[in-house]
């Protein structure tokens, strides 16, 4: 049985194992270094406990646990404020019309503007799962548990939620957008820049990023084709998030030009459909499979359950679901269909 719960110091080794098995892109929000990861778990623990420092923003890290074995099979996160007090960098793709009335020509000129407009929006991040679990219900549980957490702690989050999707990278690790733009200015390979981005303050981006807008037409063809395109391995994530109500707008990742998805927090499918219900016992294991969550802050839990009966504000689910959530009869829970 799968459980999503707040990450704990004891998860460090499991998470490192998972992070190490992933492509480079994940590193930008989930450090691969033990010390950095350890600090991140501690900050998450403070966030769940509501004990953040005065200048420290809330950053939540969840793990997917197989409660049979007690091992962790995936990680996901929420930053309450993208940028965490520093600018959150994106490119904003816009177009100018260059037209000459006299010559009768008109041309659409696409421009990438450096933008911090998404700074301070709630950011879904750090999603990492063991490859064999892609396209399973556990995958959906790990991702959407965050939406249920947001629904239950709506006051901690902003009206707009965003998520960065990994952009195009070839099989031999080349990132066409980076090779055509960032490489010239950062003088390092994509993986290095991406790691710095996860580990360091954003000062180096302010220092190294080209300060002026970029004309798309001057990018390489491969880079142009990669603008706003998700990496094919993120297809499942991409579709799941679209189903949640996220859509890709005009914002792109500054390193790989992957799309930044946006949604109104209150319009997220899991938030809209997960009204609080009172928990009751079911006698059978039958019923439609649902996501169910309960508990606040550090006692937040989310799992998959058959929903035996739902009547008004009351629901009946099997007892093992109670145990998994650590809830008992009469407690408030949230439930949303898979």
């Amino acid at each position, binding site marked *: 049985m799968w459980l999503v719960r707040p990450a704990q110091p004891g998860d460090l080794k499991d998470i490192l194992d998972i992070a190490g098995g992933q492509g480079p892109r994940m590193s930008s929000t989930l450090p691969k270094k033990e010390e950095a990861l350890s600090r991140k778990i501690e900050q998450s623990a403070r966030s769940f406990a509501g004990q953040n420092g005065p200048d420290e923003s809330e950053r939540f890290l969840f793990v997917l646990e197989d409660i049979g074995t007690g091992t962790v099979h995936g990680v996901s996160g929420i930053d309450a404020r993208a940028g965490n007090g520093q600018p959150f960098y994106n490119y904003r793709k816009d177009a100018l019309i*260059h*037209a*000459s*009335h*006299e*010559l009768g*020509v008109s*041309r659409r*000129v696409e*421009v990438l503007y450096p933008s911090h407009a998404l700074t301070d929006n709630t950011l879904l991040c750090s999603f990492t799962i063991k490859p064999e679990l892609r396209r399973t219900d556990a995958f959906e549980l790990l991702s959407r548990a965050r939406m249920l957490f947001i629904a239950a702690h709506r006051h901690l989050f902003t009206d707009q939620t965003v998520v960065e999707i990994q952009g195009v990278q070839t099989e031999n690790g080349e990132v066409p957008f980076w090779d*055509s*733009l960032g490489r*010239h*200015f*950062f*003088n*390092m390979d994509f993986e290095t820049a991406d790691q*710095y981005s996860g580990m*360091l303050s954003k*000062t*180096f981006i302010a*220092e*190294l*990023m*080209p*300060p*002026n*807008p*970029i*004309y798309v*037409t*001057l*990018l390489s063809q491969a880079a142009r084709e990669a603008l706003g395109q998700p990496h094919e391995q993120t297809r499942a994530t991409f579709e799941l998030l679209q189903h949640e109500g996220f859509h890709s707008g005009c914002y792109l990742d500054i390193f790989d030009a992957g799309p930044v998805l946006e949604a109104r927090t209150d319009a997220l499918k899991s938030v809209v459909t997960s009204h609080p219900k009172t928990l009751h016992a079911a006698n059978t294991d039958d019923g439609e499979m649902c996501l169910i969550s309960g508990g606040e802050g550090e006692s937040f839990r989310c799992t998959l359950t058959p929903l035996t009966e739902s009547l008004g504000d009351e629901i009946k689910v099997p007892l093992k679901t109670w145990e998994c959530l650590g809830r008992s009869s009469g407690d408030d829970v949230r439930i949303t269909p898979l």
Partner: protein
Amino acid sequence: MLLIRPLQENDLEALYAMAQGAGKGLTTLPADRELLQKKINHTRETFNQRCAPEAGLYLFALEDTELGQCVGISGIQARVGLDEVFYNYRLSVTVNASRELGVHVRTPTLHLSNDMTDTTEICSLLLSASHRGGGTGLLLSRCRFMYLDDFRKHFSEKVFAEMRGVSDGNGQSPLWDALGSKFFDMEFSEADMLSGLGNKSFIAELMPKYPIYLPMLPDAARAVIGRVHENTAPALNMLQAEGFNFNGMVDIFDGGPVVEAFIHNIRTVREGINRHVMIRKKPLDMKVPAEDQVMISNRSFRDFRITTIPAECIGLDTVSIPAEVAEALEVESGDRVRLAPLKDTGKR
């Protein structure tokens, strides 16, 4: 005798023939009778002081007095960018550095610039193939510096020249292919021509306004920025010898460099000397090598004349010239003339 004088009404046909022979490179003198006539009119108004000095266009003809025909032309535009907007790219550097990461990157960058506005340009040099060699090109080019020197108040302190950039045999420019063509829906030659005709509002409309980072352009395009067309290399050498330097500006279409100099620093200006005319009776061998020739000007605003004479004519206070030279220059015994070496003497 080869004589420099202001362009005249009756030079139109000779001018048209030269423009035809020059091909597409010379956008300021297109083979178009109507346009050339306009240039002549403008020049006549300028020399006759019927237009503001800043608006002046000073075109000089090189006349072969034996043929009685104009065989070359060169010009000074008193100020650029008054009627229209004058564009260049400034080749600049953007430095990004992070001490924390030990990264320090310099990115050559092109910034759209109007900074040559209100500056004097030397332009429109064109010499018939039949008269090339033997220092004639030097005379045609350098006569302008003697004029600038004598009438400095009509010109800016600095003067500049735009040098033709690199293009291949078919007139294709690597910079245009990589940059201009992405924004202008036309051929290089068309853009160049439109721009030469003074119709520049299409540049304001179509030109990218944000800086262009050079690493984003292909090697072939980067390689030609600030470089001149091989046919223009001699002209560049000549100007460099006069003290002109690349000023960091390049042509927005083909990347050709702009070179500039303070008038007071131009060699011809620095080495110029004044003498009183004496008409000589003694015979004189006019046919001396270019090294031994000096330019002699009559210092007249309206009826400016320059020709060359052997340097040996120069005395302590006077210069003794044959009667026919005095006649051609429209000077008499006792008039003050100005002289400067035709070729670089190597003294700097």
